């Protein structure tokens, strides 16, 4: 399929358009709110919330007998919320650390959810239709009504995020200072965590409880590499989340029975990989280039120092040339002397006075004095 055909499908195929809009919206909301989870080192809290939502979905269905998305999402939200309360309660009231508390809550709630689901499935009624899609997500099951719900609830969450921006920022950066200037830290924390719960539960139908947390963490982690500003990071994470959402939904809807969750998560993971490697300042490639250029500069400086030392033995003359072989011997292992000399020549610090004979220039002497003699400025 060409890109043009894909675009045409996205724009004119009603089903695909609906699904893509839904996954874009949930990706954006998860990406934006995920930034705060990642910055507060709560990346795995999202995992606990998502898994803890499963029993809520099953119970909501059992209690109401309805498969309506708003009811299931509400059930998921309540149970996800209770899960986070458990984590907090365990950590506050015992010697159990957060990592174990998260592990217990996510796996036990999930186990309970599976019990409820298998229990539901074995009931004679056929109405349980497809609660399993909540495990790995199936974007194709998103109906127009579901998308309206995702967009509406998600927009409300983002609006609250914008309104309480400075409070959330202060909470994430320096909660104690925040408390000292009168910020009700606990209440702000509850609000932010609730928004995270919202961002997660609206994505469960399309992405699934097992992998939803990745959609919270990955766009944020990717966005962090490109910027040092919280505002830009949140916008970028929202964009990347939406991108992963649409990409995953489209790929999975092309057929093959691939669940949407893994496709979206894999897309988001690729974005993280690209960001880690190629982001301009924090990226690994940039780091390697920086390191190499530093190493070369240092190597050139070392050769300059030798040239200067040789010149000094001859009364700091710039006329007398020294063979490359001598310089190589002075450098010990001798690698890269030619490259260093070329670099020095380009900077006007050294020149080739005869074939293979090199000398320091006036500018080179100047720099060598500044850099290598005591009292130099570097």
């Amino acid at each position, binding site marked *: 399929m060409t890109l043009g055909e894909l675009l045409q499908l996205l724009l004119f195929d009603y089903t695909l358009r609906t699904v893509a809009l839904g996954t874009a919206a949930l990706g954006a909301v998860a990406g934006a709110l995920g930034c705060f989870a*990642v910055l507060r*080192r*709560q*990346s*795995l809290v*999202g*995992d606990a919330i998502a*898994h803890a939502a499963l029993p809520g979905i099953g119970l909501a269905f059992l209690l109401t007998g309805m498969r309506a998305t708003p009811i299931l999402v509400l059930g998921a939200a309540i149970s996800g919320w209770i899960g986070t309360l458990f984590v907090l309660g*365990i950590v506050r*009231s*015992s*010697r*159990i*650390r957060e*990592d*174990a*508390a*998260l*592990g*217990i809550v*996510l*796996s*036990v*709630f*999930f*186990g*309970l959810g*599976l*019990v*409820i*689901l*298998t*229990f539901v499935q*074995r009931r004679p009624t056929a109405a349980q239709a497809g609660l*399993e899609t909540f*495990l*790995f997500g199936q974007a194709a099951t998103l109906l127009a009504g579901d998308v309206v719900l995702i967009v509406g609830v998600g927009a409300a969450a983002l609006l609250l995020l914008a309104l309480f921006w400075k409070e959330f920022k202060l909470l994430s950066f320096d909660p104690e200072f925040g408390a000292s200037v009168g910020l009700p830290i606990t209440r702000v924390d509850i609000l932010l965590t609730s928004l995270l719960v919202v961002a997660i539960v609206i994505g469960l139908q399309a992405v699934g409880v*097992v*992998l939803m*947390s*990745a959609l919270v*963490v*990955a766009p*944020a*982690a990717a966005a*962090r*590499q490109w910027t040092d500003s919280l505002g830009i990071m949140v916008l970028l994470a929202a964009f990347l989340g939406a991108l992963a959402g649409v990409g995953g939904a489209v790929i999975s809807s092309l057929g*093959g*029975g*691939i*669940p949407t*969750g*893994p*496709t979206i*998560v*894999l897309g988001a*993971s690729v974005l*993280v990989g690209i960001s*880690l490697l190629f982001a301009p300042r924090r990226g*690994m490639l940039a780091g390697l280039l920086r390191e190499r250029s530093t190493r070369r500069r240092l190597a050139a400086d070392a050769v300059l120092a030798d040239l200067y030392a040789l010149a000094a033995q001859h009364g700091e003359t710039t006329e007398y040339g020294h063979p490359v072989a001598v310089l190589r011997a002075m450098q010990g292992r001798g690698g890269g002397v030619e490259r260093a000399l070329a670099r020095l020549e380009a900077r006007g610090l050294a020149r080739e006075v005869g074939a293979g004979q090199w000398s320091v220039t006036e500018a080179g002497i100047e720099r060598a004095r500044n850099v290598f003699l005591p009292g130099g400025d570097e």
Partner: protein
Amino acid sequence: MTWIDVEIQLLAVVVAVSCALPGVFLVLRRMALMSDAISHSILLGIVLAFFVVEDITHPLLVVAAAATGVLTVGLVELLHRTRKVKEDAAIALVFPALFSIAVILISRYAGSVHLDLDAVLLGEIAFAPFRRLEVGGMDLGPRGLWLMGAILILNVLTILLFYKELKLCTFDAGLAAALGFSPVLVHYAFMTLVSGTAVGAFDSVGSILVVALMIAPPAAAYLLTDRLPHLLLLSGGIGAASAVVGFWLARGLDASIAGSMATMTGVTFLLALLFAPDRGVVAGVRRRARQRVEFAGEMLMIHVLNHEGGVRARVENREDHLQEHLRWSPDFARRVVRHAEREGLIIRTQGGELHLTPLGREFARHRMIH
């Protein structure tokens, strides 16, 4: 109870105990969530190895899966060490990516891989008795039981043989390194053990519930005891008990056995959290109520000592002043003063002034310098 039920329960107990033992060290080393990462990513190893050998029972699958688990640990550390993401985010990035690839491969080639997604999440402990190990036509019992039994023995042996190293690297990695043990080597060897255990348990209980079996029993035991040997025994016991109760719960509800085993580990943990004799929430509340009066008594005496003989002693050292300055209710202040009087630490003059007895003075001085 049929023979099949017995075999399932036996397997459930062996799985639970195998998971709980390494889980103790995961909890103590604050790496509980590494089990989450490992148990997810082993699926990729299983799937990839299957593509190579095309036999779901091939032993290579176990090896490949365990290797993927260790690889996950390495990847998380590598990512963390770039300092571009924090450790929690590194975990949350690595395993979903690997798990996603595995799930996509399974659903893409669902026909050829004899693994469906239900089995990935739920395990197939209920079917374990139907897969027998036969040697020369002789039925030796469920194959899963043999595999898991071997893993259990391996875990027990490793912990017994390397008890000292594991203990040292858990509690003081720096000292371990100084003494010539390599904490890194021990770490990776241990993570291999965790991965192998997760792979074995995966067949029975699926990838997520392994986490419950590994973390919840040790966490519950950690609320009951401080000593490492007791911790190991108790974790195993709690795991085994949760497994058996979970089995019967599942029977009663006609629901997933693995799910209800995980649920039971959670229930056990909750019970320990609430009712552990020393560290439980209930015990804590009662102790605090008792200590509040004792502590307040100490505070009272130190307060009196500090102001004894001072210009303001007449004002400071009175019961009604305590209400104001120590923020005590009249009722509580009376209780504390009575308590101290009864213990012979303080006397109250007719005018309501409080004075330390010699015993009280000595006690207060001692408390002030600990």
